[in-house]
């Protein structure tokens, strides 16, 4: 790399960080938070004894896992306006990513709930707890411990998947890199810098995962 490229990279540190802080990170946090709510609801639907709810949940997970994320983004952004729903790029991306995370994470949540021995639920119901309380106080806290590693995977994937939002006009890290690279034709340098930024975010998240795991495991004797 020659001097002018290095200068460009240095001058791009802040603009790219802006793309990260104003695009990538809010997109990730909003989508993950909403996605987790969807995941919990869908998991409970699949575990319920009501066949209709089970069917809806199965169908949803099947569609989400069976179609590419980019296609889901395009459908929400370009196809929904045909039906009169024209959303701005950012909310469109949040909806698409939330639905996607919800589909994948629901399977994680379902597996985690199933990992809590059935006997505990029965015992709780026997002593007079109702179903919601049993879930909230007995099952979910234990399931959370099991779910942390795979959910961290989902979150880390999501950080990188948000780069797809650049294809529907959301100005995030990757789009910012393209914008700076375009008039200078320094795509290699700018994309490398973007890669480093993504990597740093994921390192931080991995560190957070370790912390959460340690905390949730502290009552479990090994």
């Amino acid at each position: 790399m020659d001097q002018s490229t290095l200068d460009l990279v240095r001058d791009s540190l802040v603009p790219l960080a802006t793309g990260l802080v104003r695009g990538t990170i809010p997109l990730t946090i909003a989508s993950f938070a909403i996605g987790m709510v969807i995941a919990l609801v869908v998991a409970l639907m699949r575990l319920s004894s009501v066949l209709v709810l089970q069917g809806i949940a199965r169908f949803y997970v099947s569609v989400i896992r069976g179609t590419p994320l980019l296609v889901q983004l395009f459908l929400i952004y370009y196809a929904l306006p045909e039906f009169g729903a024209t959303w701005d790029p950012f909310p469109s991306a949040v909806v698409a990513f939330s639905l996607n995370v919800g589909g994948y994470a629901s399977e994680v949540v379902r597996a985690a709930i199933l990992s809590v021995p059935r006997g505990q639920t029965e015992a709780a119901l026997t002593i007079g707890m109702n179903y919601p309380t049993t879930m909230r106080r007995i099952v979910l806290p234990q399931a959370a411990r099991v779910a942390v590693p795979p959910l961290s995977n989902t979150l880390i994937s999501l950080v990188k998947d948000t780069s797809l939002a650049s294809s529907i006009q959301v100005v995030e890290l990757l789009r910012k890199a393209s914008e700076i690279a375009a008039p200078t034709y320094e795509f290699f340098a700018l994309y490398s810098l973007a890669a480093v930024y993504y990597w740093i975010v994921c390192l931080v998240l991995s560190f957070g995962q370790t912390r959460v795991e340690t905390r949730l495991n502290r009552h479990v004797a090994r």
Partner: protein
Amino acid sequence: MRRRTLGTLSALALTGLLAACGGGDTSTSGSGSSSGSSQEALTFGTEGTYAPFSYHDEKTNDLVGYDIDVAKAVGEQLGRDVEFSENNWDSLFAGMEAKRYDGIANQVSITAEREAKYVFSAPYTVSTGVVVTRADDTSVTSLADIAGKTSAQSTTSNWAQTATEAGAKVEAVEGLTQAMTLLKQGRVDVTVNDQLAVLDYLKTSGDTGVKIAAETDDRTEQGFVFRKDEAETAQQVSDALAKLKADGTLAEISQKWFGQDVSGPAAG
């Protein structure tokens, strides 16, 4: 512990919601900024990464370029605000069909196929296409020589069609710079693109690994393109372009970006 977990979760959710409300300011400002003009803003889709036609200034980060200047001049002529919405080339038409903007300001070449589906304004650029090869490649001296070679193109670009018709095998890429990279890496043999864009690339990047090997014989005209239901707008834009041509504004913008008048002959 449970309560704390719930607290953390709700804090997360809250942050997310706040971000969803506050973080939505992309370059796409929707509507509602009519400063004194009676009509609503004229909205264009544009790449924002296609120098020197539509890109972000390195220093100021503003959206600038030849197409941006022309579109703004048209807006001024019509007394309407002009707003831009940035999108990848391959998605520009999809965005227009989804009514996310009225038209496209991005050096869209006027072709029969596009005219069948959309409506064009009068052209504001006239240029030719060029064939680019590696600097040490002497096998191409005319467009016909690319037959059987591999060419890097954006698939929905008219240059992809030019390359296909000349008998080349098209390799899909995002844009001009990616095409240049593939070319230098020896993954493709040629790329066909607009002469002005290539000249700007060679000048700005100082790239000596590639050269213009041939010009295509067809002259291409570029205009603003609109959905068919915006035919009236297209007509107004054409009228505005004719006035801007007559009073020398187009020539002036053109001189600023290219050092020569690329806006084509008068009228039209």
